């Protein structure tokens, strides 16, 4: 019998590594489970995360980038940490090759509230590599079985430079589709960049998605979130209809270790997805 | 002549009020009321209205120099110091963590301070045993003279006489008790590194769990980091919830440094800390 001990990771193997950006510090990893029963147990929805576990290094909580509509693997987009805090796990993962094996613990946390999003128009706003769980959400919604459950889908995605956009092939594919409006922007373009230039909040203001029956799902670096939230508020989105995902240092991922405690919530087990209305209830301690 | 704690308290209040009212300093570090008589607390007066909260009694053990590094550089501060505490201030000035001209040092010559936990008088056994501050701007009481003066290192004789194995057994027993709450380093006026070496994970210097290997690494390295810097205030040992006599090791290292380099920590702001200094005439004898 397999252990149901929540602290024990499941073994997975790297089946594909994609170098996402031109600075080579963000890679996507596809994992397949080594045990079929683990795969059956790993039932997740977009917005959840998992602990990537490398023995000898530690664990690192990362949002799931794949969608449950993509069977056979689970994917994560991981940035090599280390600019300020040495990231042991992410560095070790980045040094691994296809065929390498690590541990996976999850799925953890609450997903984007899919039922709440149904029948509504969805505005997905992402910045930089925080787009991972949004990529999962968009892929989920665009799946042929799911597309009819949602209204209009608008994606606004920005990065600092064209080279720093993740999932370039998929973005290109989305741009060609008629059932999703895709707006890509970069802070500063280059010679070959023919798309938009401008910061995400400004672009949101410019695009001005209608708040009618709409939910904004926002994920990005803190400064982007800080300036984007008011834009949507001004556009008329209610606080309940603005969703975001909180970042906080985590260890156990199951609401036991106390580290991600903010007010009466544990970000890991009560979040990481919160609406703006819920966030305003919490002390500003994150 | 007996020390009057009451008079010291009054004088501290007077000086604190004067300094705050004149705007000469923006805060005064002193002691204030705790939850009972026996437990006065470090206290910060930021305005004349806070001054009444200042107390001074026989249980004011804390070394307030510890708080100097908490405030932004350039903050004008007054700090109340007993003898050992003043050495910590001197040492911090030597290490350029605070500027002399930002400080008003309120020196308190005193004896008979007691450890609230044990009720014992704190003397040369667990501290440097000095009575008078080595550096001050304002003297809060008359200098203490005529009290017995003992070597702060006398207490070491018993441990130095032990053979290697007995001494190792002694330290193993003491250090194994450590629960790694880090009260010692947090109470220490000279422990200001952020992050502390033991909290680093790359390189990882020692284990985080409170077991022999990590405990030994943490404490030996900490003793080393304080070599020639420890001013022997004894705060680490008083802070320790499991009563590890850290002061013994610090005293030993201080004694060796004094003998080898001819300089005690925190005695003059002209000095340089001994381990960031050298003399051409240093001898290889110290390595023997």
């Amino acid at each position, binding site marked *: 019998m397999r*252990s*149901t*001990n*929540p*602290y024990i990771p499941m*073994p997975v193997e790297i089946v594909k590594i994609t170098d996402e950006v031109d600075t080579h510090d963000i890679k996507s990893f596809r994992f397949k489970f080594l045990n079929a029963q683990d795969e059956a147990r790993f039932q997740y929805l977009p917005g959840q995360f998992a602990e990537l576990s490398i*023995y*000898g*290094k*530690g*664990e690192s909580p990362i949002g799931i980038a794949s969608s449950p509509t993509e069977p056979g693997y689970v994917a994560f987009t991981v940035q090599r*940490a280390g*600019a*300020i*805090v040495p990231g042991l796990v992410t560095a070790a993962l980045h040094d691994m090759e296809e065929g390498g094996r*690590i541990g996976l613990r999850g799925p953890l946390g609450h997903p984007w509230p899919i039922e709440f999003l149904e029948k509504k128009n969805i505005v997905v706003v992402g910045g930089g590599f925080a787009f991972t769980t949004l990529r999962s959400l968009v892929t989920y919604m665009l799946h042929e079985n799911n597309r009819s459950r949602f209204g209009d889908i608008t994606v606004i995605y920005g990065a600092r430079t064209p080279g720093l956009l993740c999932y370039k092939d998929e973005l290109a594919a989305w741009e060609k589709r008629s059932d999703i409006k895709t707006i890509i922007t970069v802070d500063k373009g280059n010679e070959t960049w023919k798309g938009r230039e401008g910061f995400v909040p400004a672009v949101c203001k410019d695009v001005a998605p209608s708040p009618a029956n709409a939910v904004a799902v926002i994920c990005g670096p*803190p400064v982007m979130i800080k300036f984007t939230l008011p834009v949507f508020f001004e556009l008329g989105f209610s606080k309940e209809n603005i969703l975001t995902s909180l970042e*906080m*240092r985590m*260890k*156990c991922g199951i*609401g*036991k*270790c106390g*580290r991600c*405690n903010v*007010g*009466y*919530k544990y970000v890991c*087990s009560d979040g990481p997805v919160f609406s703006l209305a819920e966030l305003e209830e919490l*002390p*500003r*301690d994150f | 002549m007996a020390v009057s704690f009451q008079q010291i308290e009054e004088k501290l209040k007077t000086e604190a009020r004067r300094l705050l009212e004149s705007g000469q300093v923006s805060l005064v570090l002193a002691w204030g009321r*705790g*939850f*009972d008589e026996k*437990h006065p*607390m*470090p206290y910060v007066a930021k305005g004349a209205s806070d001054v009444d909260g200042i107390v001074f009694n026989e249980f004011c053990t*804390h070394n307030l120099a510890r708080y100097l590094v*908490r405030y932004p550089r350039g903050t004008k501060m007054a700090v109340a110091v007993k003898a050992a505490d003043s050495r910590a201030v001197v040492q911090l000035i030597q290490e350029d963590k605070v500027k002399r001209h930002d400080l008003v040092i309120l020196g308190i010559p005193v004896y008979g301070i007691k450890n609230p936990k044990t009720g014992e008088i704190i003397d040369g056994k667990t501290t440097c045993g000095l009575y008078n501050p080595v550096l001050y701007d304002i003297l809060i009481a008359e200098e203490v003279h005529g009290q017995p003066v003992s070597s702060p290192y006398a207490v070491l004789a018993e441990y130095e006489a032990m053979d290697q194995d007995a001494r190792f057994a002694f330290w193993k027993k003491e250090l194994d*008790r450590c*629960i790694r*709450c880090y*009260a010692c*380093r*947090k*109470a220490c006026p000279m422990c200001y590194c952020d*992050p502390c070496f033991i*909290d680093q994970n790359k390189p990882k210097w020692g*284990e*985080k*769990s*409170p*077991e022999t*290997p990590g405990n030994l690494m943490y404490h030996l390295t900490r003793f080393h980091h304080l070599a020639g810097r420890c001013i022997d205030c004894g705060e680490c040992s*008083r*802070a320790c*919830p499991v*009563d590890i006599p850290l002061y013994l090791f610090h005293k030993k290292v201080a004694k060796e440094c004094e003998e080898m380099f001819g300089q005690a920590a925190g005695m003059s702001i002209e000095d340089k800390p001994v381990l960031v200094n050298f003399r051409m005439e240093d001898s290889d004898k110290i390595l023997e």
Partner: protein
Amino acid sequence: MLKKTAIHQLSDLTSALMGKGTLVAPVREDAGFNFREISDAKQVDLNFHNTIISPKSVFFPQTEDFIRYRTGRPLQEAETVEPEGKPLILFGVRPCDVKSFEIMDIHFSCTGAVDPYWQARREAATLIGYAFDVAAPAEPEEFYQTLGIGAADPEGSDIFMVRRGDDLILKSITGKGEALLAGIEGLAGASADDGKFFDDTVAAGRNFKTRFTCVDAKAITKKLEDLFHNTDFWEKASNACLSCGVCTFACPTCYCFDICDETLFGRGTRRRVWDACMFTDFTLEASGHNPRTKVYQRLRQKIGHKYSYHVRKYGVISCVGCGRCTRHCPVGIDIFSIVEEAMKA
């Protein structure tokens, strides 16, 4: 069931208990008393007021291994350390500490994910509580009365002990306790007078005065929420705080831990180690962002967590007033004084 034994025959009782399972009891050590696993029945010493570190370490040890592995070996060879459920007898626990287990149960095994290590040990344990001496005054640091805990509350214990002169009266409180007590030979039967003494002590324990009286959980929860942005208040409260971890390590209801990997000579363990919200790097994220860089923010988190967030999440204050944090604080910070100040602010 009511039994008694003479104090000087305590080692007979403890050696009988050792035959029933692992015995953990107070032991006199260099720095004071602590709960330890007993190897010699004579080690047990009931002449203590309370232990330095709380007995939470019996169920939630400071270091707990989850996985043992070898580096460079296939992942599947890693060995899971399964939670142990061997019979355990925890002897001589003070009522406030008994209460702390109930509070920890809510967090570890009754809400959300179940912590298998805590649960297994807890289920396998028989608790033998021990009343404070209600004839002597409380120590100045204690305030369990404030939180509605009596000095001789038998609730939560399986067996509860009261000292009467040179005798120790033992009463079974639960079925589990009764079964254990019935299985111990050599105990004397207690008289009706002893029974009355026991009940009187419990009653006296309810009226026993520690510092402070009565704190309303709802009121303090709200108050601390309102005070969150009052930086002046928190800076004042934390002026002396060194941000070491004594208070949290000694606390019976602090449960924060770190999960870390320690590897030596190719052998490694994934383990949890107690951590403290007072440490600077507690909330340091991989991005370098740290929401609590200042001492006042960390002290606010600690007090807020115990007296406000925990109440809102789990319905109870996460404090039992044992006074350990105050007793061991190197600078004499007293959590209850801060709570009192907060109520007044």
